[in-house]
């Protein structure tokens, strides 16, 4: 048995097969995969320059190398603070983030006047800004790993986080439109030239609260039930919390004019509820409530209008984007045409026409990239996303406490759901909503929030893969595992 990165497991753990298996940190695998991702990003940048400039400038590698330094820095932090973290997460996210930065720089090149293209500063424009945001986001994730030495410590602040989450969700809805509305969706806080999307952070805070709340309530929610048609349904009074979240998400739908965020919050809650209670009935109730609510909003939008009109309009565009291809349906139509123009293999990085597609640097970045890397490239990106989500779920499976399971499972699912909502939106699978594409879209809020999410997953996976016995090579940072969540009894599942 070879142990890759860390000193051999202590003799005490040799008797326990699983413990020995988990003791492999695989940090070197992470580093090699990371380097591969960086080489891919550099190759992408070189191809972009070859296509756009007809030549590869001598400093094409600088953005990739800068990203490389940042990610290798995070890798070193992981080696130090979370040595048993999942080795696939960082390289996968790094690849997505690198392609995002590369595409945004490619977009800057297309926007620049032709004679200036060759001399476009490496750290200028959206691409340069995204690079800076990446640095900030990675520092934030590293900081999270440093402060939160055990994911269970998060449960101590559950109520604070829950309150913060609701406040963050509500701010854009309450703010006047000019401070919060961009592209007809009230998802922002805009101060001066600066805008942040509080919802991106809210989903992390809310999920931590959900996980804590459900761990405390799961006995009641899963045991007390009535049986109907072979399915166990919860008692009426236990429906309270799910109805509250349903209402909040509908309010989001109506006042922030955004189906995606609404779907995201609600899906996130229902799935954590399902994981906690193991009751399919919660999923059914959730789905019926959500689709019923959305359909009701659609009907109200078509008859009453008012706050529902926006949702109705979005649904109409979704049903027939080519009905008004130059006005209402313009974005979606151009998105579809961009994807279609890419075809199977794409026009090659730098070979497309991203400037023809509005919002290509944010909502529609997946379509913009799709024009250049084609169906094959996009499928690869989807697989990378799927890998991140499934590795997150894997961490949830392996971690030994319920709070960790719910936290990691919920976060991983939320990330997957967000990818589904935005990619499904731009490809006309579901009505289009203003979500960011995790790690690709230009914008600091989304990048930071999603890197924080990855930070939490890294922390949970570290906890999951760390040898159980106290004799492991790395001592528990918090000094002995807390057997109890803050104020609540919880089981720690021994492998």
């Amino acid at each position, binding site marked *: 048995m070879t142990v890759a990165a860390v000193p051999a497991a202590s003799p005490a753990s040799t008797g326990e097969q699983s413990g020995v298996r988990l003791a492999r940190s695989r940090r070197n695998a992470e580093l090699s995969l990371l380097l591969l991702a960086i080489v891919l990003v550099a190759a992408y940048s070189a191809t972009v320059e070859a296509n756009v400039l007809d030549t590869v400038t001598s400093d094409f590698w600088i953005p990739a190398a800068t990203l490389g330094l940042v990610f290798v820095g995070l890798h070193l932090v992981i080696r130090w603070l979370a040595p048993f973290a999942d080795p696939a997460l960082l390289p996968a996210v790094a690849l997505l983030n690198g392609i995002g930065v590369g595409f945004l720089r490619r977009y800057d090149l297309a926007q620049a006047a032709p004679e200036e293209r060759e001399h476009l500063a490496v750290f200028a424009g959206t691409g340069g800004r995204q690079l800076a945001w990446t640095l900030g986001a990675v520092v934030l994730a590293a900081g999270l790993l440093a402060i939160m030495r055990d994911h269970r410590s998060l449960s101590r602040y559950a109520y604070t986080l829950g309150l913060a989450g609701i406040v963050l969700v509500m701010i854009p809805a309450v703010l006047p439109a000019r401070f919060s509305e961009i592209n007809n969706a009230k998802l922002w806080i805009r101060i001066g030239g600066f805008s942040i999307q509080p919802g991106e952070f809210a989903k992390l805070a809310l999920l931590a609260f959900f996980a804590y709340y459900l761990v405390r309530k799961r006995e009641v929610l899963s045991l007390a039930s009535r049986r109907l048609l072979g399915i166990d349904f919860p008692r009426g009074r236990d429906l309270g919390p799910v109805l509250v979240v349903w209402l909040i998400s509908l309010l989001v739908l109506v006042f922030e004019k955004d189906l995606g965020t609404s779907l995201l919050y609600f899906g996130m809650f229902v799935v954590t509820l399902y994981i906690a209670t193991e009751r399919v009935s919660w999923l059914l109730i959730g789905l019926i409530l959500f689709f019923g609510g959305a359909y009701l909003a659609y009907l109200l939008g078509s008859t009453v209008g008012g706050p529902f009109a926006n949702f109705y309009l979005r649904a109409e565009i979704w049903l027939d984007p080519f009905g008004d291809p130059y006005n209402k349906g313009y974005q979606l139509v151009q998105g579809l045409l961009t994807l279609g123009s890419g075809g199977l293999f794409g026009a090659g990085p730098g070979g497309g026409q991203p400037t023809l597609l509005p919002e290509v640097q944010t909502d529609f970045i997946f379509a913009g990239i799709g024009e250049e890397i084609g169906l094959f490239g996009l499928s690869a990106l*989807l697989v990378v996303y799927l890998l991140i989500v499934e590795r997150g779920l894997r961490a949830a499976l392996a971690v030994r406490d319920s709070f960790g399971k719910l936290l990691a499972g919920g976060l991983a699912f939320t990330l997957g759901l967000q990818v589904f909502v935005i990619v499904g939106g731009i490809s006309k699978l579901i009505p289009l909503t203003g979500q960011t594409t995790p790690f690709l879209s230009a914008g600091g809020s989304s990048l930071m929030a999603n890197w924080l999410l990855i930070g939490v997953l890294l922390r949970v996976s570290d906890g999951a893969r760390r040898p159980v016995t106290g004799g492991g090579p790395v001592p528990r940072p918090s000094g002995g595992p807390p057997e109890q969540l803050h104020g609540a009894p919880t089981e720690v599942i021994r492998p």
Partner: protein
Amino acid sequence: MNAPLRRVGVVVMILFGLLFANLNWIQAYKADEYRNSDYNGRVQVAEYDRKRGNIEVGGTAYAISKDTGGKLRFLRTYPAGEEYAHVLGYQPVNGGATGIERTENQFLAGTSDQLIGDRVKDMFTGNKTGGGNVLLTLSKRAQDTAYKELQNNEVGATRGAAIAIDPRTGAVQALVSMPSFDPNPLVSHDTDAASKAFNKLEQDKDRPLANRALAETLPPGSTFKVIMSAAALESGYTKQTRIPAGASWTPPTSGQPIRNAEDSICPQDEVSLIQALTESCNTGFAQLGVKLGADKVKEKAREFGFEQDDLTVGQLGEGGLPVAASRTGEMTAPGGATDPAALAQSSIGQRDVRMTPLQGALIAASVANGGSQMRPYLVKQLLAPDRTTSYYTAKPRELRQPVSGQVAADLRDMMVSVVENGTGKSARIRGYTIGGKTGTAQSGPGTPDHGWFIGFALDKNGTPISAVCVELEQAGSGGSHEAARIAGRIMQAAITDAGGR
């Protein structure tokens, strides 16, 4: 809790499977449809990515593509602005092209089948060869003259047209429609500005976008008497046959008397046919028409090209700028019998008779060319992008033979008499034999008359060099005189350009 987590994993896979299936639908199944959609700007970008060929006149390019390096790389530019606008047309970013830009689009764009060799070569060399070049028949000098003289006409007409053709080949020497427009703003890559410019032109009441030389008809007035004369000569009349005239004549069924333009014109009871044409005797031709009959008049007009509604001017094969059909109109009374009043008015080019300036020039050209009407054309040659290979060279062909050589010779003498002794004196050119016919057509109650002139120039050997038609819409008094003067200047320019043959 592990069982639901595993199930959530499956749910995520299903969601991603849906995304994957949907992307397959869009990027594989629908890809071609989306790639070539009308709404897809990439189609255009690809089109603008290749340098479009030139449209040239006499060695000078009047439609060229300039490299802007922008998203749409090549900007179409028309250095001569208004002067060639109705011939060249324009190729806007959005909306339909017009003129030669439209009819020769495939060759100019390089997508023509003829240029397939260049495309294959491009695939191997990696170069991007531009489109082919189109060489026009126009004479720079004649076009300049036609444009300037129309613009600066001495009767203050704001609308009109002039067209000159080589009677022996049908090659168009000049083609101007007034008012004209600057095509450059219409092809701007700023599509909002372009459509603003287009809307402004389209709402202009003088309709500058209309090609009056080819696609608009007006009552031809007395120029129609050339066709009447041809009908008479073929029915046994000679130049010297005396026909009934008079100061005034009232057709049998109508109370409306037909008069001459001035009292001094053919007041006598009879004049010779040549005299009637020279003076433009209305009463003589009105009675002649009634005598010949409507069928004879209509038939002769048809033989000169009236009623043809599918003529185009471009290449001699297919395609080209559309030409409106000239019409003789109704001459029957209710019940089907010929209405003598209608026939009489039609015989002097009024009532429902309508003619394009091109048709006028074709009549003059047929007379000058011994009765043979050559098919008019604008495209002289199609040159490969590298200018070495020629893909098309115009081979003039006869369109029709309206009159015999003998009748043509008589008509020629009669038309020469018009310029030498009659109403068309202002068209005279020293050293050349000029023939023609003026026309003054009533445009409607209370509006000024249209002034017309159709004519030709022969060198001292009797070889025809140019046939021309000038029309000044609602020019009022002196319109036909001014039209004749302008026609003379255009023919002189054509003569100079042709090397003074």
